Structure formats: structure tokens, C-alpha cells
């Protein structure tokens, strides 16, 4: 199958059509958040405060880039391992998050929540930080800049390469090959 182009924001009906194993090129806006930013977001949700961006239809990218050189948009920006965010994911899906990009397995609960909320877990290629950076055309700090590489950034991306890894039908590309 050829690579499919998709645009953000995502909707539930787009997500429900995507199948594990499909390679996609994402264009639009995505937000970075890793461990520390997730904990901050969850705190805000718990205390009933407003979030720094509306999650509805959005994609969160588990990434902490290296520093940008002067004149460059961003440094290397590949994915980090996703399992560390497993226990912090459900509340975000409840608020309308529709996509996550990372690398590695997810927990059974995240897989279930992805089905319930009609979202998608994409993986990006770990260690392809320079290639991925070349598909990012703009980077704007959104929140928690004191966290350095862990701050939330709003990224404008063009043809960001990712793989649909866990879909709304409960298919998981990682299981697929281990069963074979």
C-alpha cells in the first residue's frame, strides 16, 4: 500500500478508517509533550483549570527535540518511548485527543481507550530525528517552557512520516508480527 496523506485536526470518522500497518504522511499542527508535560496537563485537569491548548481532534507527539541552531526551526526531533505515558493518557483521550505519535508498545488500557474514543496510535521512526526535523516547518512554544526539552511545542508539519500502529479495531501492529 502507498503512503496515505492525512491532515490535522483528526476526526473520529477519519480515525476509524485507518488500519494498523498503513504508512501515513501527516500535514498540519501537532503538539509535543512527554513525561513532565503530561504530568502538568493532568494536574491542570484535576484542579479544573483550562489547558494550554484545546485537545479536541489534536495529535500529541512524544518528543523532546535537541536545541535548534540559530536560524533553524528545530533540532533533531524523533519520538521517545511511549510506555512512560501509558498511565497519563486516558484523561487526554476523554477530552478529545485523537492521535498520539511515539515509539514502542502501549498498555492494554491505552489500547482499549483508543477503541472507545476512536483515536489512533502512530509510531514514528526512533532515531530518525534529523529526517523528521526536516518535515517541521514551524515550532512555537505553547506552555511549560521552564521544562526545556520537555516543554510543549506547537509544530507545523508537512508530510510527517508515521505508521498506524494501534487502530480503533484493536489491531496492534506489534502483536501482528510476534504472532506470526
Amino acid at each position: 500500500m502507498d503512503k496515505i496523506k492525512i491532515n490535522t485536526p483528526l476526526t473520529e470518522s477519519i480515525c476509524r478508517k485507518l488500519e494498523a500497518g498503513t504508512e501515513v504522511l501527516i500535514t498540519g499542527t501537532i503538539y509535543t509533550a512527554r513525561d513532565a508535560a503530561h504530568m502538568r496537563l493532568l494536574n491542570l485537569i484535576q484542579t479544573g483549570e483550562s489547558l494550554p491548548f484545546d485537545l479536541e481532534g489534536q495529535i500529541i507527539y512524544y518528543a523532546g527535540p535537541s536545541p535548534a541552531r540559530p536560524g533553524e526551526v528545530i533540532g533533531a526531533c524523533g519520538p521517545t518511548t511511549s510506555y512512560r505515558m501509558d498511565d497519563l493518557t486516558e484523561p487526554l483521550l476523554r477530552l478529545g485527543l485523537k492521535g498520539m505519535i511515539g515509539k514502542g508498545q502501549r498498555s492494554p488500557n491505552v489500547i482499549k481507550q483508543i477503541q472507545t474514543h476512536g483515536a489512533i496510535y502512530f509510531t514514528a521512526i526512533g532515531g530518525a530525528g534529523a529526517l523528521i526535523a526536516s518535515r517541521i516547518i514551524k515550532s512555537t512554544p505553547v506552555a511549560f517552557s521552564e521544562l526545556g526539552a520537555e516543554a510543549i511545542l506547537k509544530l507545523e508539519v508537512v508530510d510527517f512520516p508515521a505508521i498506524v500502529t494501534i487502530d480503533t479495531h484493536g489491531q496492534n501492529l506489534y502483536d501482528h508480527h510476534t504472532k506470526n
Partner: protein
Amino acid sequence: MRTINVNDVKAAVSHACIEMNYEIDPKVLAAFKRQRSLENSKLSVNILSDLIENAAIAETYKAPLCQDTGMIVAFVRLGQDVHFEGGSIENAIQEGIRIGYASGYLRKSVVEDPLIRLNTGDNTPGVIYYEMTEGECFEIEIAAKGFGSENMSKSMMLKPSDGEEGVVAFVLETVTKAGPNPCPPIIVGIGIGGTLDKAAQISKKALFRNLGEPHTAKHIADLEQLLLKRINELGIGPQGLGGLTTALAVHIEVFPTHIAGLPVVVNINCHASRHQKIVL
């Protein structure tokens, strides 16, 4: 007696930190290309193609190959007839790391206290081992170690009776459990023998060897080949999404051990295998 100015050490270390993060090891690049021609799924072929393109972009735009630019590990080989002037060798190496990570726009990923976890802001300290030797030699083998793969590494104190079979089983179990997390294709460093700490140290040292260069002892080189074959038969594949290329190489180092023990440490490295040798 030979005299070396520590400023030369500092400059060489900072240069190595930058260069190894921007430029792919040519042997890894060759292995990507070889494996791409062997893979039979489109997804695996595309992943390896993307990694090849990643290396080209990193070199052209002077961007790091991976955003996790690692924690520095260095093995220093120091001849006993070398004298240093201008300061301490330890400080010079740490200062070299500091300068390299700042001027190379590399990510600072080291926290001061492992429990309090405040970033040191300059990627120091690196982990430095010193080995004394005769004569006037001075060499530093230096690597930037990513933690996606470091976190998947494991140690095990096997019984002598577990033998080679026990080692094979433990390595395969470790690689299977690691799955997609260490960003396969991986390079597997294995230390066998010594004490718990020695096995860990030589498993790290094994990762510095030229990719795929066999051990000099035939039975160890054979074990490396056997393990590489068995690991690639696991089917984990590039990025853990299935395929023939789970590991690019297996490197084993051994050390004499106690009659009662068989320590084994498996140190996993990702394909972003960033290491250099400095000879002054």
C-alpha cells in the same frame, strides 16, 4: 616521558562529541543498505530507507542523527610514561563534553542526582574509565549512549552449569523483552565472565568494536554469529514492526571469572551507534 597538554584533550573530546552525533558510522550505513536489499516487507524496506535518508540529512544540515544525543561513556587508555600539563585529565574530558554539547547544539540529558533529577544543563558528567598500560600511549574511545536502548539492558548471574546454552537463552530473552523500545535494528554488546561490574563494563566496551568485527577467539566469534542468527530469527525487525533485521551485529567480550560463577550482561545499543577513537 611524553607530555600532553590537557587543552588538546579538551579540544579532541569536544570535536568527537559533535562529529559522532552528526555523522553516521559508515559501517552502520552500509549495514542499512545491505539489510534493505534483504528485507521482504515494504514497511521494513521503507524504515531502512528513512534511516538512510536521516543520515544524509543529518550530515548535510549538521543536525544530530537522533535527538537523544546520549550520555557520554569514555574508555581512556593511558601509558604510564605520559605526563599531563595544564590541569587534570578528568576535568579536561568533562570540559570537552561541556563545550561539545553546547557548541554542537546537542541535547543535555544528564540529571545531577538520580532521585532529585535536576538537569545539570551541560550533559556532564560523562562516565569515564581509565586503563593503565605501558609506554607513551594515550587513547580515548568515546561514545554517546542513548537511553532507549540502555534501559533495555540486563545482567544475570548464571550458574557455571548453565554454560553457553544459558547465555544464549538469556540474550534471546533480553532482546525479546526489549522488543521495539531500543529502536531496532540494534547492536548487542555482551560481557561474559569477571564479576558483576566487570561483565557490565566489558559489555559496554564490546559496543565500541567496529561493527561486525568478530572476536579474536574462534569459539567466541562462533557464538557471536550464532546469536546474531538466532536474534534475527525472532522476527522483531526494524522498529519492532516485523522483519528480518533485528540486530546488525553481536559483539562479545569475555574475562576470566570465579569457579562458582558465570556473570552475563547484555548491553543493547540502538542503530544510532555513536562512537569514536581519539589518539593523541
